C-alpha cells in the first residue's frame, strides 16, 4: 500500500532550502538581450522524509527551479541572487560556494536528478547493466566490476523490477520500464534528495501509476526526500505529501496535499484544481482563461493579475509577500493579506 504523511516544516528537519533565489536565462536574440526570469524569488524549506510536489503549467519555470536545486546551473542560465543550501549530516552547505570536485561528490550521493525523458540518461548503445556499473564505479571507491553488477542486480530486485532488465538495451524496453529503470538508477547510491522532472509525462495511465508507485516505494525504503515536478494535479494528489504551486517563476501557494485540494486559497490554485474533470461528474468545467505570461516580459505587481477574477488595484502595482495562514500553509496573494477570504474554493 502507498502511504502519505502529514509534514510540518521545521528548521531541524530541513534537507534542502533556498532563500530569495533568482535564476535567469540571459539570451541574445538578433542582437538584443533578452532576460527570462525563470526563477524569480523562491523560498523553499524541503523537509527530510517527504515527497514535495511542484505544480504548474508549462513555462512557469519549474524545470529551471529543479535545475537550480540540483545545482546544475549552466549558461545561459545564471544564478542572479539568493542561495541554495544543502543540509548534509548536520552541516548547512551553501551550494554556490562549492567547487566542481566537491559538487561531483555530492551528486548521486546526496542529490540525484532525473531529467525529463529517460532516454537522455540511458546510453542507447550499451546494456542497462553497463550504465549501472559505470555509475557505481565512478561514484563508489573500491568496487570491482563484478561487485558493481551484483549491487545493481540486487538493487533492481529489491525494487520489484524484473532482473532480466539488466541484460536488455534501452530500446528493447517499453517507455514505462525505461523510466522506472532510470528512477531506480537515481536511487542507487541512497541519495538524501531525488529530484524528478516530469517523470510521468507522456506515459500511459497504468504505466504512470506504476512509476509513481516505484517512486513512493523508493522513498519509503530510503526514508529520503523526493522533489517531484509535474503539471498533472492528479499525480500530485496521489504522490505528494506537500505541494508548492508555481506561477511565473514564483511559488504562490504551499501547503500539505489535503489542504491544497481542500482549501485552496490562491485564485490560481483554485482555477488549476477546478479545471480538471472529476470522474463521474459531467458538470461543465472551464480551463484557466488567458495564457501564462512570457517569463521575459512579466506584468507588473502580481504576475497573475491579468488573469485573476478578483484583481484589485494593489495587485497591479505591488508583488504580494507570503502570508502564513497556518503553520504549514502559506500564500502570496493580496486577497489573503488584506484579510479577505479567497472566494470560490
Amino acid at each position, binding site marked *: *500500500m*502507498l502511504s*502519505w504523511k502529514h509534514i510540518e516544516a521545521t528548521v531541524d528537519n530541513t534537507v534542502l532550502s533556498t532563500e530569495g533565489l533568482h535564476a535567469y536565462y540571459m539570451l541574445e536574440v538578433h542582437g538584443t538581450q533578452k532576460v527570462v526570469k525563470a526563477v524569480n524569488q523562491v523560498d523553499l524549506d524541503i523537509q527530510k522524509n517527504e515527497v514535495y510536489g511542484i505544480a504548474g*503549467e*508549462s513555462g512557469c519555470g519549474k524545470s529551471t527551479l529543479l535545475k537550480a536545486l540540483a545545482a546544475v546551473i549552466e549558461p545561459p542560465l545564471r544564478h542572479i541572487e539568493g542561495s541554495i543550501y544543502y543540509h548534509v549530516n548536520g552541516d548547512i552547505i551553501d551550494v554556490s560556494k562549492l567547487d566542481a570536485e566537491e559538487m561531483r561528490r555530492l551528486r548521486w550521493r546526496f542529490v540525484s536528478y532525473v531529467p525529463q525523458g529517460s532516454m537522455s540518461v540511458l546510453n542507447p548503445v550499451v546494456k542497462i547493466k553497463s550504465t549501472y556499473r559505470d555509475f557505481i564505479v565512478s561514484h563508489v571507491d573500491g568496487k570491482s566490476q563484478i561487485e558493481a553488477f551484483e549491487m545493481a542486480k540486487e538493487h533492481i530486485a529489491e525494487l520489484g523490477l*524484473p532482473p*532480466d*532488465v539488466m541484460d536488455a538495451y534501452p530500446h*528493447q*524496453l*517499453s*517507455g*514505462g*520500464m525505461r523510466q*522506472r529503470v532510470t528512477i531506480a538508477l537515481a536511487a542507487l547510491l541512497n541519495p538524501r534528495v531525488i529530484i524528478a522532472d516530469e517523470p510521468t509525462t*507522456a506515459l*500511459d*495511465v*497504468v*504505466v*504512470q*501509476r*506504476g512509476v*509513481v*508507485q516505484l517512486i513512493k516505494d523508493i522513498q519509503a525504503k530510503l526514508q529520503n526526500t523526493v522533489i517531484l515536478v509535474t*503539471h*498533472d*494535479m*492528479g*499525480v*500530485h*494528489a*496521489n504522490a505528494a505529501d506537500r505541494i508548492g504551486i508555481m506561477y511565473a517563476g514564483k511559488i504562490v501557494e504551499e501547503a500539505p*496535499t*489535503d489542504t491544497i*485540494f*481542500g482549501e485552496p486559497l490562491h485564485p490560481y490554485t483554485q*482555477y*488549476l*484544481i477546478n*479545471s*480538471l*474533470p*472529476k*470522474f*463521474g461528474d*459531467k458538470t*461543465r*468545467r*472551464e*480551463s*484557466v482563461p488567458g*495564457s501564462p505570461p512570457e517569463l521575459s516580459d512579466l506584468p507588473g505587481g502580481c504576475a497573475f493579475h491579468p488573469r485573476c477574477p478578483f484583481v484589485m488595484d494593489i495587485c497591479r502595482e505591488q508583488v504580494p509577500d507570503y502570508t502564513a495562514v497556518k503553520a504549514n500553509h502559506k500564500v502570496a496573494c493580496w486577497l489573503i493579506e488584506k484579510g479577505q477570504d479567497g472566494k470560490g474554493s
Partner: protein
Amino acid sequence: MEKVLEVEHLKKVYSLGSITSRARITAVDDVSFFIDSGEIFTLAGESGCGKTTTAKLVLGFEEPTSGLIIHGGKRHESSDSKKKVWFTEGVQAIFQDPFGTFNPLRTVDRYFFETIKNYKLASNEQETFHLIDEKLKAVGLSYDQFFGKYPSEFSGGQLQRISVARALLTDPSLLIADEPVSMVDASLRMSIVNLFNRLRRDFGMSVLYITHDLATAYYVSDRIAVMFRGNIVEMGTVEQVLMAPKHPYTQLLKDSIPEADPEHRWEGRVQLSDSDQDEYLKKGCKFAGRCPQVMDICRREVPPDITVDDVLIKCHLYTEDVVTLV
C-alpha cells in the same frame, strides 16, 4: 439514425524484425464498431493498443490487411487499393502534436486557403474570408489573431483550435481527433474538449475521439470502446463502461486514473507488463499475463465477444452468464 461510419472486422498485421527473426504483430485485430450521426465515440486505450492504427486505416493513410470500412454510402475494402486516401471531404482529422501539424516555415492560413481552393468551397475572396472567419469563430478565435502568422507564434492550445477550424472548412460529418489534448497542459484540455461538445450540438458533427485519458472521455463522449493490444475488449455507453466496467482491463484503466482529489487516491498496487511485444504474441487472451482474475482457459483460448446488458465484452469471465452471443 444514419450511421456516419461503420467498421467491420478490420485487421492490420505488421511484420517486424530482421532476416533472422520476424514477428507478426496484429496491431488491429477483428475490430468492428459504428458511429451514429451527431455522436461522440471514443476509442480508448494505452499506447500500443491499436487505436491510432485504426484511425489511419479509416482515413486511408494505411492499407488494412482485411476488413470493411463504410462511410457516406461508400464501401472500401482492402482490395481496392488504387486510391491512397479514400475520403477527406466528409471526414477530417486533427492530430496529437499541434506544432507538428503545420509547416513551421509557412504561415498557418495557407492551409485554409488551400483547403478552400482544393475542395472548391468558395468562389471569391469575400466568400473565402467569410468561410474562414465563421470557422475561426466556431473555435473561439478571431481572424486578426490568426492571419499571416507562423505556427511558432501560437500556443499549443491555440494551434489545436486552429487545426479544428481547418478541419471544419469542408463541413465534415465526422472529425477524427487522435489524442488531441495529450500534448496540451492539463488545465487547458477542457477548452478543446468543450469545443467538441459545441460542434456536436451546433453542427450535428460526429467525433471519433481517440485518447488514453478516460476522464476527458467520460466527460465528452456518448459511447466508448476500450482497446487492448489490438482488440476491443469492452464497448458500450460511457455510463456503463466507465462507471461500471466489466472487463478487468477497463477496471484497471479506470482505477489508475490519477484523480485530483486526495479522498480518491489509488488503492492497491499495479503490475506492469515487462515487454509490450510479448503481450501481442500471446496465444489466448492478451491480458492474461496481468489479469487479477485470470483463469486457465484465458491462457489457452482467445475470449469470445459476448453482450451483457448492451455492453460488448471480450472476456471468459462472462461466458457463464451469457445473455446473447454476438
